[in-house]
């Protein structure tokens, strides 16, 4: 069933709700945290940034569609640069736009998901400079970046309590995500059935139109005009 685009309708998930709750946060706070994380990735994985250096000042707009912020990153710049804006504010110009759910983007960053597969399934959208996007994807895929450990390190003295909360938190989030998926499926099921029926009717009509066109093309011109 054709769905609305990632940009228009992010998937129903705990991240979406948490993102709504995070909306009052000033972008500067999110930016400070992400800059710290970027510095830690840079320190821990210099080979990634060496591979990205040919990108120079190329800017990537990273748009986690279920979070009310988006980031513009220049990973090939010296030093790498990052800024965060709200999703309803104009972002600085970027050569590449990469959009997807936060969990999808995180999996991609950690090499846990295959970028091509996410692109085929339309869970990941790319616009702009495809070569730069591919360079970034391939460089990140080769590194073992652990986003969870990096975010814990950014928390400093709060890392210990955060780590203790993480395991039950992850289980809770996973359960919530599954539950919300079921709720979403239940709510949209009647619509999905109707759309599937309409899609089948449309496909049958397209086949008929195609067949009619083929027959029309096969007929001699004189017969067609007469």
């Amino acid at each position, binding site marked *: *069933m*054709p*769905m*609305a*685009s990632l*940009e228009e309708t992010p998937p129903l998930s705990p991240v979406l709700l948490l993102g709504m709750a995070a909306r009052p946060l000033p972008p500067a706070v999110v930016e400070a945290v992400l800059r710290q994380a970027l510095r830690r990735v840079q320190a821990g994985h210099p080979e990634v940034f060496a*591979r990205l250096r040919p990108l120079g000042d190329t800017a990537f707009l990273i748009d986690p569609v279920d979070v009310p912020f988006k980031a513009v990153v220049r990973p090939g710049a010296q030093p790498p640069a990052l800024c965060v804006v709200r999703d309803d504010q104009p972002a600085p110009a970027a050569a590449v736009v990469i959009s997807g759910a936060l969990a999808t983007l995180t*999996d991609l960053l950690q*090499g*846990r*998901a*295959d*970028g*091509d*597969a996410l*692109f*085929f*399934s*339309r869970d990941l*959208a*790319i*616009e*702009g400079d*495809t*070569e730069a*996007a*591919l*360079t*970034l*994807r*391939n*460089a990140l*895929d*080769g*590194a*073992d970046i652990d986003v969870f450990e990096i975010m814990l390190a950014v928390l400093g003295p709060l890392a210990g309590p955060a780590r203790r909360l993480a395991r039950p938190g992850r289980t809770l989030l996973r359960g919530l995500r599954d539950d919300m998926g079921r709720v979403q499926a239940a709510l949209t099921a009647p619509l999905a059935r109707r759309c599937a029926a309409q899609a089948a009717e449309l496909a049958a009509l397209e086949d008929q139109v*195609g067949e009619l*066109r*083929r027959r*029309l*093309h096969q007929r001699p011109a004189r017969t067609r005009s007469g």
Partner: protein
Amino acid sequence: MPAMHTEIPELICPAGTPAALRAAVEAGADAVYLGFRDATNARNFPGLNFDEGEFREGVDVAHARGCKVFVAINTFPPAGRPGPWHDAVDLAAKGGADAVILADVGMLDYAATRHPTLRRHLSVQASASNAEAIRFYQEAFGVARVVLPRVLTLAEIAALNRQVTVETEIFAFGGLCVMAEGRCALSSYATGQSPNTNGVCSPASHVRYERRDGKQISRLGAFTIDKIADGTPAGYPTLCKGRFVAGGCSGHLFEEPTSLDAIGLLPKLAATGARALKIEGRQRGRAYVTRVVGAYRKALDALARGETPVSDGTLDALTEGQRQTTGAYLKSWQ
């Protein structure tokens, strides 16, 4: 007439990066294939492939686990500039590669003359699809294995294996190329660059994705490849996977975006006498390598125990266009 092989085929797996190589080795590859970071291999994509240090380290990692390393040097050097291709063959030999995968007759001659003990495999890029061609490469350059084109049926592969003494390798999973490989000019036509000389089909530098009217538009050079509605699976932006209007109808004239998955055909593939099965996808991430190699290792081990491997559908999500095919293997028409 040579006896048919009955043993379990080797599993040959893609390694686009050192991380993918480690993933393939850990998932149970019998051999990995890789390329150097230049136009000497047919996956010359930005950020992919190995420099000399990574290659040597990769050979150590693979050999420590009993996994072989094949180096793909399978593009055709431009006239008068074979230097980088010669260097690649020399590096593969010096670095401990178990075989080089070559397509160009000049490179085959160079490797056979300079490194006679280095095993030579004929790349699919050479498009050797009949016994006479295969025998020529075997007799002229001592080729030990031929990677067969993806356009042959199981019956044709079995018939070929009865006629030749050289080992054959066939594709089991991944992207499909339905053209005469090494001779396809579609990418050159659209972008000026081709997999045959530049090592890249539909280079990313010529690909643009745009969103317009609720559709994703894929462009390759000056050509619109496809317009895909939201929620509809996508494929690679190559001309051969494009949707065109002809005879008043819109459709995929050459090939639909789909991936080969022959896991359900493994007993039949083994029965053709093919010595090795290849997983396509050096351009894919290590998550792909882990899952595909793991699934095929499990299936081949099941086959070795006399069981019939069954696809559990876990690889479906990794396929192009989210669709699987058995390709030409069961094709009943020519």
